[in-house]
């Protein structure tokens, strides 16, 4: 077996595993993101259903913010 073939036999699987592993990791992270988004969005839906947001005067809000400062 010549040297080139030997190098290819060793290098190709290493490269394939590295590249494959990289994309598998990205796929896993995408799955985690989708799961976390689903949980978060459901929590938001429930919170808004239980406590609907109220309208607030913008001028009053800025006046309150100035008092705090």
């Amino acid at each position, binding site marked *: 077996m010549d040297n080139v073939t030997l190098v290819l036999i060793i290098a190709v699987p290493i490269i394939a595993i590295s590249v494959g592993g990289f994309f598998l990791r*990205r796929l896993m992270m995408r799955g985690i993101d989708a799961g976390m*988004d689903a949980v978060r969005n459901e929590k938001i839906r429930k919170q*808004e259903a239980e406590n609907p*947001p109220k*309208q607030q*005067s913008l*001028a009053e809000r*800025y006046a309150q913010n100035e008092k705090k*400062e």
Partner: protein
Amino acid sequence: MSPILVFLLLIGVVLAISIPIGISRGKKMREEMEKGNMIRREGSFWDEETFFYTKATYDEVKNKIKEVDFSNCKVSTEIDFEGCQAVFFCPNPKYWTAVLEYAGESNGKHLFKYYVYSYNQNKLGLLFGDMNICLTSVEKAFLSLDGETTTETHQLQRKTKRSWF
């Protein structure tokens, strides 16, 4: 030189660079707050949509936004974005973008919706100051047009998008 010493030295260098950067950013944000360019906001305001109920029409709001100086939050604006009654705020699409769109009428008032359309979560620590300044500028624009403007905020349901590379 032992590996542990090299490691400790590396940590020291990283801290020596990052702490002054953090302090300088904190000082800048404090200054912007004192100037009134941004206000204290609770929670993650970048994940909220703000509805403005106002007597001002879209044309009045649009013309007012044109007069506002957004240079301190590095934002450029695109009015009537894609032919819609909307203003697009675009500092750098890779980092964050925001939209102010006209959403019709409600109880005799004009309704506008402002929200951060997208942002790079990895850079949020660097961006939320600019987002705050942009939103504060928009709110002040509404206040100058109609002192009786009211707002309502809702949490946005987000979808995380991650690139393959």
